[in-house]
């Protein structure tokens, strides 16, 4: 008997669309079994992680607050993933985005006006893009692997945040706590809009998902990004330069992570402290793949991952699972989505080969 994977000629679109649902379902089943096996109430843990946040409306604001940065970051990463430019350092660009916004906040401490938040947002996006720029430059100039350089810059960003909030940017009136001064009213965005429990970031994320979909599917640039990723030689032949795609996708994904960071700072935390880094930059990688590298899928996947974050906290208090539980479920989701990708593109064949023909002859 042999087990083989044969490439399918045309992967089924339906299967491609359904595979994330299968991955989430598999995560629930396997997760329940694992947690049962190590002595927790597995089905209950799964119920709290995936269903309680949806069924309990008072959790929606929490879910929305977490979905917004995940979707924003994942949109940017997806553009890069299409070009096979792997930005693993979105967490660092997210921190820089918040720092850019906080820097603008410090400069505008004594001012008022509607323009202050937009200025902070622009500074945050620019800072995020700036943090991705060396990654692009190193890759184009010296062929440095962007996975490593972008990841290492995360740690530099964390140290920069630590330095700033414990040093030059520390709140003079903050009783020596390692944090910046709280943002003023002109520097903050409301956590809910239009009477719904959803922050402005979520509306921005959904709007940008539409924009990214347009860019990826309906522009000359979007085609180029895909072709650079799928077939670099064909891209060169078609007049697309791979180095341009590296620059643009890294700068855009940096700016998107920066946007997520600055929105988080002005909407949720209202100041920066040592606890600001949240891991959204890493989780967004899962969102990108679970969303099938499609902006609309990412909007959905961002909500699913946000649910697992919130649900993980719920399960900690109800079923007493450890705090790493949400992370385990998120990692399983990535594993299953990548595995189902293999099966959508390939066909699993179990061949009884020799045995069968011999039997037929005998």
């Amino acid at each position, binding site marked *: 008997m042999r087990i083989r994977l044969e490439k399918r*000629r*045309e992967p089924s679109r339906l299967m491609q669309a359904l595979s994330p649902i299968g991955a989430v379902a598999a995560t629930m089943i396997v997760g329940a079994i694992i947690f049962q096996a190590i002595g927790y109430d597995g089905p209950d843990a799964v119920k709290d992680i995936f269903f309680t946040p949806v069924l309990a409306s008072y959790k929606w604001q929490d879910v929305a607050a977490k979905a917004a940065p995940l979707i924003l970051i994942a949109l940017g990463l997806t553009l890069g993933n299409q070009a096979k430019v792997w930005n693993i350092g979105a967490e660092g660009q997210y921190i820089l985005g918040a720092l850019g916004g906080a820097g603008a906040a410090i400069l505008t401490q004594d001012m008022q006006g509607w323009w202050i938040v937009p200025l902070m947002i622009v500074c945050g996006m620019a800072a995020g893009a700036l943090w991705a720029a060396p990654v692009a430059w190193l890759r184009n100039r010296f062929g440095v692997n962007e996975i490593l350089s972008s990841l290492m810059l995360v740690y530099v960003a964390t140290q920069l945040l630590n330095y700033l909030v414990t040093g030059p940017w520390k709140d003079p009136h903050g009783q020596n706590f390692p944090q910046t001064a709280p943002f003023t009213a002109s520097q903050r965005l409301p956590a809910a809009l239009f009477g719904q429990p959803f922050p402005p970031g979520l509306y921005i994320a959904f709007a940008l998902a539409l924009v990214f979909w347009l860019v990826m*599917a*309906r*522009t*000359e*640039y*979007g*085609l180029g990004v*895909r*072709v650079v990723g*799928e*077939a670099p*030689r*064909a891209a*060169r*032949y*078609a*007049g697309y*330069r791979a180095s341009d795609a590296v620059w643009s996708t890294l700068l855009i994904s940096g700016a998107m992570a920066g946007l997520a960071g600055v929105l988080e700072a002005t909407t949720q935390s209202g100041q920066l402290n040592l606890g600001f880094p949240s891991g959204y930059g890493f989780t967004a990688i899962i969102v990108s793949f679970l969303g099938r590298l499609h902006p609309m899928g990412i909007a959905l996947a961002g909500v699913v991952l946000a649910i697992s974050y919130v649900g993980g906290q719920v399960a900690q208090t109800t079923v007493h699972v450890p705090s790493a539980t949400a992370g385990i479920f998120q990692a399983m989701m990535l594993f299953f989505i990548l595995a189902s990708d293999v099966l959508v593109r390939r066909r699993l064949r179990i*061949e009884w*080969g*020799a045995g069968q*023909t*011999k039997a037929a*002859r005998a």
Partner: protein
Amino acid sequence: MDGKPRLQLRGVTKRFPGVLANDNVSLVVRPGEIHALLGENGAGKSTLVKMIYGVLHPDSGDILWDGEPTPIDNPRSARKLGIGMVFQHFSLFEALTVLENIALGVDAKIPQNLLEAEIRRVLDLYGLKLDPRRIVSTLSVGERQRIEIVRALLLNPKLLIMDEPTSVLTPQEVEQLFETLRKLSAQGCSILYISHKLHEIIALCETATILRAGRFVAECDPRRETSRSMAELMIGGNLKEISRTPGRAFGAEKFATRALSLPKIGDFGMALKEVSFSVRAGEILGVAGVAGNGQNELMEALSGEVASPDQMILLEGKTIGRLGPTQRRALGLSAVPEERNGHAAVADLTLALNGALTARRRMGFVTGGLLSLSLARAYAGKVISTFTVKALGPHSTAGSLSGGNLQKFIMGREILQEPSAIAVSQPTWGVDAGAAAAIRQALVDLAARGCAILVISQDLDELLELCDSLVVINLGSLSRVMKVGEASIEEIGLLMGGVHGDPQATVEMTEALQHAH
């Protein structure tokens, strides 16, 4: 010779989802026989051969080896029986050396130095040029194929399957290979020979099995057939010959290079040395030569993938050397590289988007950065219908098309853009007779509309059929231009072997030519 056949297929059927690839096919190869397997792309040759080599397994029917029903589970057991195979598409690891690649294909564990000595012996014996220590990624298509040939010959096979082995050889090398194959056959090794070059089959093979649409059509003796009669059996209809208007006049010079020189890229690239040619409106200039002599480098310089000093390339009098591919296309210069998958087309993209790869600006799909998918779909649809590409439609991915159909699509994509000049590499490599004829006719028609065409090909017959004039590329430089009617095969062949500029070799060539006449 009356003994049991070496290989016999009885009623072999193989079905893929939606396709009946082989329908009740029978085939007999006797010991020492050189047997041709003929058929258009998609006729089921590859499937049949893969079953003989154990890559696929028949759904029903028997494979008999030396008269015994023998299941062939995998290529390893095929090799154990003594079946060697040279695939048309190579399975080589780019980052490894020739030697390491061959070592991976050898089932027995042999120390590398012994293997290398053995390889050098086989190379010598069959006059194949190949350095076992070179990295595969630096090799041309022709050289890569030689690895596969050596790999098969190392096994001292009893049946050697060859899938289009001569497409990258010079006429002299083809003759050498035939000598080798005849030697092998005299020693009792059977050869199953797949080729589209019908005159080669007439020269080499004793028997031919012809397939069409997965079914056995005929077995014949090629020596009693003509190329035309066999081609018609393959396509099941009348073969169209290229029709061209006699006594065409060429226009002014449209597409030219002036002493185009480029340094070699990578350790084993080929530098271009003062390449000068001139193609007039309506003219087809052929560039003959063995793979790896600078064809790819020339192609990339012409397409704009590699920039050159500006004055070295001219299109309608304008210097374009430093322009990129998009700007060159806007001016009317098209290019089709040799490699279809991953270079001229992207397997995972739809045909509509593959059309947009090169046609997006020239055919106006792009307005303000937005790409009109409906225009791209309509254009792909037009290419599909004009060039009778077998595809479900513009939404099919390029990877779902057979090689010949994808090549027709790519050629059609460029031709319908009505370029004022076009450079094409290997327009019919691995393409069946019917599709090849259609592609050649399309090029001739394009020239008749005033396009200046440069065709780079290793298929000399194709160039002689298609072109008005010919040059030979060797070691990155071009020979003098010959008019097709006046060029002798011997001279071209010797130039392909690389003699010009070397006085001793020129003397030898002259002697050889005198000898030939």
